[in-house]
């Protein structure tokens, strides 16, 4: 039986740092089992929004609910219980430099599961295989390229088979070919895992390929939020301006052939 209630819900979320208003009344519901991308120019509060979703930041007012738990009033124990249902890929991978690739990916399992070391190893090898880095358990993190770091970060994010995976700029700082690889990886994982994805990005080309829904943040407000094809046809000037920089936009409802996709 499928449950269509939103996995994550933000209700009238406000956040400011000093005089700077970063989030100004955000209402957003992330549907389960689909990929929602949050886009917008740099410095519009995308990462701040993501940090609210995992409870790393608390809103000044408003509510953030994940799996029915209000994170603004949750105890630390409740917050940690919710976080165990999440996986997150950080912008730079956020890998622990003192550990090998395998130890990094195994870390969440060792902290929270009662799996035997052999089972942990097997699970980690599976995930490393999935992200295209087989037989890299012993490799030092310092030996990895930027793209490989992200892929290891991705393996760590999914190693516990979480219900929601969050991506903070999964392709920023990567060359176009590696960005394509990461986007393909996200699509493959979506097909394999069937989990809810939330992607923060300003790479509109990649976003269109992977997202079912797109929301756009601008100056702390959610200026548009719709299914991807409808979003691309949006007439809102700021959305048009943002999209036109990177895409050949469809002119009408039937014209979707110009959308970038993996053939």
């Amino acid at each position: 039986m499928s449950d269509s209630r939103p996995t994550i819900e933000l209700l009238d979320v406000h956040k400011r740092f000093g005089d700077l208003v970063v989030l100004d009344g955000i209402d957003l519901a992330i549907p389960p089992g689909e990929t929602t991308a949050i886009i917008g120019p740099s410095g519009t509060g995308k990462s701040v929004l993501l940090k609210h979703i995992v409870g790393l930041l608390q809103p000044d007012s408003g509510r953030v609910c994940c799996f029915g738990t209000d994170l603004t009033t949750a105890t630390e124990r409740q917050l940690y219980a919710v976080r165990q249902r999440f996986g997150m890929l950080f912008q730079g991978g956020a890998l622990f430099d003192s550990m090998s690739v395998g130890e990094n990916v195994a870390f969440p399992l060792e902290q929270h599961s009662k799996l035997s070391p052999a089972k942990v190893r097997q699970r980690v090898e599976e995930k490393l295989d999935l992200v295209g880095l087989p037989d890299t358990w012993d490799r030092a993190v310092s030996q990895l390229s930027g793209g490989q770091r992200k892929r290891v970060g991705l393996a760590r994010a999914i190693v516990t088979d979480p219900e929601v995976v969050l991506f903070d700029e999964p392709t920023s700082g990567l060359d176009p070919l590696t960005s394509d690889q990461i986007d393909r990886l996200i699509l493959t994982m979506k097909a394999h895992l069937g989990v809810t994805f939330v992607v923060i990005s300003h790479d509109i080309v990649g976003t269109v390929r992977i997202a079912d829904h797109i929301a756009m943040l601008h100056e702390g407000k959610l200026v548009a939020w719709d299914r991807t094809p409808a979003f691309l046809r949006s007439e809102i000037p700021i959305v048009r301006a943002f999209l036109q920089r990177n895409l050949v936009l469809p002119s009408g409802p039937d014209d979707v052939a110009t959308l970038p996709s993996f053939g």
Partner: protein
Amino acid sequence: MSGLRTALASGTRQVGAFSWFVLDFTRAALRYGPPRGQVMREAWRIGIASLPILLTISAFVGTNLALQGFNAFRPLGGGRLVGMFVSLAGVRELAPMIAAAMVAAKAGTEMASQIAVMRIGEQVDALEVMAVNPYAYLVTPRLLGILLVLPALTIISIFFMVLSGYLVSVHQLGLNGSVFLHFASQGIAAVDFLYGALKAMYFGLVICTVSCFFGFTCQRGPEGVGQATNRAVVVSAVVCVCSNYFISEILYGGLS
């Protein structure tokens, strides 16, 4: 004047932030406990990192105590008191301070810079998101490690100070070795070693909490890491040296 006011306001803010940090850390330490196997690893790392430099410094402090003691007491006819001077100054004051200073310089700066790099590299956030309390994971093992190892380093420092003082007194200054050792043992009691160890544990507490605090509150960028490291060692040293007076007053003040 406005510069002074800004500095005072910033200092007050830092003290407030440090108090919150200690409170949060204490709560986390009591709730979660240290991660498996990390305490001994940290103790070993702190000990090994600080040992060579501590041995060198302790040996040369001992030599100078012997020289200065000899020069000070000889005109008064008390050259024999060199042993007592070396052991008294070394055991009660210098060994705990020097062990603490070396650990602050080596292990304290390492703690601050490691945690600062983790903070700006989002690794601390990653711990949080993986439902691992960063205070319990990063600070608790370092604190327990330093509490275990700093008293041991202090005892080693005492031994090297007295040994080097003995060698200089006997081989350079021509004093009788047995007399040196006799007076050295007269200057101190077994309780002094306990007090030295207690002082060392207090200094360890200061060094670890201060260094980890500056690591956790690091500003973004490489400059932030340098600043955190610098502040960790400066503040640890100032707090240890200043509070040492009050601790000595509590431990030894009643003797006067």
